[in-house]
C-alpha cells in the first residue's frame, strides 16, 4: 500500500510541475526564451489567493480566479515592458532580463508581504459534524480500510492538470489563436507574412502561461502550505527541468516530464534518501538527456550544413 500511496502523491506533485512546465514550454516554443521569472509568477498567484481568502474572506474559487486575473495581467505587463523591446536581442540578454524580473518580483513581494511565512489554509476540505456534535474538518478520504489515505488536494490537482492539458491540446489544435501559436513557433517570419500578428500571439502565450502559473501556485501551496517570497523559485527550476525532460516546446512533453519528475522525486524521497532526492531527480534528467538529447518527446532538429 505504501508504494501506491507514494505513486499517488508523486502523480499529484508531478501534476503541479506539469502545469508550471506548460508555462515554460509554451513560452519557449514561441519566443525561444527561458522565462526564469515564471517561478515567481507562481508565488504572486499564491499570495493573491492567500490574501483574497484569508483577509477579504472571499470564497476559495473567487480567490483562484482573482489570482489568475492578476497573474495574467502581470504576465502581459512583464512581456510588454521587459521582453518585447528585446525581440531582436541575443538570447542571453533576454535571459538576464528574465532573471532581473525574477529578482524584482521576489523583492517586491518581500517588501509588500514581508519575509514571514504565511500559512496557506487548504481550501479543499469538507466540514462535517462528528458524533459528539463537534465540527471537524476532513481533508481527504480513505481507501482499503484506511490503509490508503488520499487528500482532496491530490485528487483536485490531478483532475485540474488533466483538464488543463486537454483544454490546451484542443486550443492549440482547433482555435485560430492556437494555430497562430503553432505557426509562430514553427517560423515567425513566415507566420507574419501570412498575416498573423506575432506580437499579439506572443502576448497571449504569456497570458495563458501566467494564468496557469496562478493555478499552479494555489495548488502548490494547498499541498505544501508555507508561503514565502522565494516559494516559487525551486518549483520553477524543477518544472523547467521537467519541461526539458519531456522535450521543451512540446505540450504533451511537459505533462509527461512533469509527472515523471514528480514520481521520481517522491520515490527517491521514500526509498533512497530525503536529502538526496533532488540529486536523484537531476541525475535522472542528465541520463535521459544523454540518451535522448532533445528530451523524451522533443523533435530532433537535423543540422543543416
Amino acid at each position, binding site marked *: 500500500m505504501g508504494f501506491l500511496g507514494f505513486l499517488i502523491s508523486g502523480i499529484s506533485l508531478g501534476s503541479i510541475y506539469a502545469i508550471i512546465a506548460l508555462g515554460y514550454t509554451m513560452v519557449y516554443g514561441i519566443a525561444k526564451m527561458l522565462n526564469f521569472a515564471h517561478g515567481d509568477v507562481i508565488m504572486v498567484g499564491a499570495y493573491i489567493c492567500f490574501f483574497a481568502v484569508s483577509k477579504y474572506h472571499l470564497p476559495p474559487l473567487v480567490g483562484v480566479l482573482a489570482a489568475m486575473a492578476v497573474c495574467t495581467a502581470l504576465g502581459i505587463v512583464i512581456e510588454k515592458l521587459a521582453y518585447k523591446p528585446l525581440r531582436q536581442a541575443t538570447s542571453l540578454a533576454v535571459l538576464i532580463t528574465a532573471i532581473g524580473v525574477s*529578482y524584482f518580483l521576489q523583492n517586491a513581494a518581500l*517588501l509588500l508581504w514581508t519575509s514571514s511565512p504565511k500559512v496557506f489554509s487548504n481550501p479543499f476540505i469538507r466540514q462535517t459534524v462528528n458524533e459528539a456534535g463537534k465540527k471537524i474538518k476532513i481533508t481527504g478520504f480513505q481507501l482499503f480500510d484506511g490503509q490508503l489515505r488520499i487528500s482532496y488536494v491530490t485528487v483536485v490537482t490531478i483532475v485540474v492538470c488533466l483538464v488543463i492539458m486537454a483544454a490546451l491540446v484542443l486550443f492549440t489544435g482547433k482555435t485560430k489563436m492556437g494555430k497562430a501559436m503553432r505557426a509562430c513557433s514553427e517560423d515567425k517570419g513566415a507566420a507574419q507574412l501570412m498575416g498573423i500578428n506575432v506580437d499579439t500571439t506572443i502576448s497571449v502565450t504569456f497570458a495563458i502561461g501566467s494564468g496557469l502559473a496562478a493555478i499552479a501556485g494555489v495548488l502548490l501551496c494547498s499541498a505544501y502550505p508555507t508561503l514565502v517570497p522565494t516559494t516559487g523559485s525551486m518549483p520553477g527550476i524543477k518544472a523547467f527541468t521537467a519541461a526539458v525532460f519531456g522535450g521543451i516546446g512540446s505540450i504533451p512533453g511537459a505533462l509527461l516530464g512533469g509527472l515523471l519528475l514528480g514520481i521520481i522525486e517522491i520515490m527517491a524521497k521514500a526509498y533512497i*534518501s530525503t536529502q538526496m532526492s533532488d540529486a536523484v531527480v537531476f541525475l535522472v534528467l542528465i541520463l535521459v538527456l544523454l540518451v535522448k538529447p532533445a528530451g523524451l518527446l522533443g523533435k530532433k532538429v537535423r543540422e543543416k550544413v
Partner: protein
Amino acid sequence: MMNRNKNFGRNLLTFAVVIAAYAILQPMVLAGSVSATLKGMLVPICAYVAMALSLNLTVGVLGELSLGHAGFMSVGAFAGATTAIALQQAVASAPLRLAIALAVAAVFAALVGFLIGIPVLRLNGDYLAIVTLAFGEIIKSIFNNLYLGLDDRGFHVSLLEDRTGLAEEGRMIIAGPMGIGNIPKIASFTGGFILILLCLAVIFNLVNSRQGRAVMAIRDNRIAAESVGIPVTKYKMMAFVISAAMAGAAGALFSLNYSTVVANKFDFNTSILILVFVVFGGLGNMLGSVIAAAALTILPEALRSFSNYRMLIYAIVLILVMLATNNPTLKMLIGRTIPKRKGAAESA
C-alpha cells in the same frame, strides 16, 4: 598583425586597471583609511572577479552557457578549506598555505570539470545549460550530505549520516549541512589580486594561442570548425576544464575569507549572479567582467542606505541596463561615435 596588436593593447589595459586598483587600494588598507565594510569585501570581490573571468571563458570564449558554475566554486571552496585545515600544523606560513589550498582546489575542480564535461559537452545550447544546472544542484546536494573527518589514521568520509568513526582527538572537517566550521581566515587581498592576475594571464595566453583560436572557431561555427579538422570535443573540454580550475581556486579564496562555509551558499542563485557579471561586462570581454563583478558586488552594499529597497533597485538597474544596451536607437547612436574612436586608435 594589426589584430594581434589591438588585442595586446586591450590585454595590457586590463592588467593595468587591475594593478592600478590594487596599487591604490592596498596602501589605503594598510593605512587603515578604508571603511570596514569595503575592507571586508575586498577578498569576496577578488573571488567574484575570478569567478566572472572563469565563466567568461566558458560563455564568452567557448560559447556554451553554464548555469552551474557555482558547483565548481563549491568544490573549490570545500577542497581549499579542507586543505587549509589539514595543513594547519604542517605549513606554518599562511601565504604558502593559501597558495597550496588554492592549487589543490583548482586541481579538484578541474577533475570534477573533466568528469562533468564528458557527458555535458556532448550536448548543445539550452540542453547543455540545463545539464550544467543539474550538476550544480547535484554537487550542492552531495556537499550538504558529506561528512569528512580527520584524525591520526587519516581522512574518514561518509555520505548522508555521520559514520566517520573518528578517534577522540580527530577533527570533523565537513559536517554535512553544517558545512565547514573554524576555517583559518588566511585569504588576503594580495592573494586575491595574484589570483586575478594569474587568471587573466591564462585566459589571454589561451585566447592568443593556436588552441584558443580553435576554441573560438568552434564557438563561431562548430560544423565549419569540425570540417577543417579541429577536434571539437577535445578543445571544448580543454576550455571547460581550465574554466573549472579557475572557479575552484576562486571558491577556495572565497571560503578562506570566512570562518564557516556551507554548501547552500553555492546554489543556483550564485551561478546566476556570476552569469549576470559576465553578461553585464560583455561576452568575451575580460576587462568588462572585472569591472562588472567588482561594481555589482559593491552596488548592493552601496545601496545600503536604501535598506529594504536595495535589492529592488538592483533588479530594476539590471533590467534597465539590459534594455538600454539592447536598444536599437541607442546602439545606432553609439555606433556613430565609436567608429571615430576606432579610426583614431588605428591611425595612432
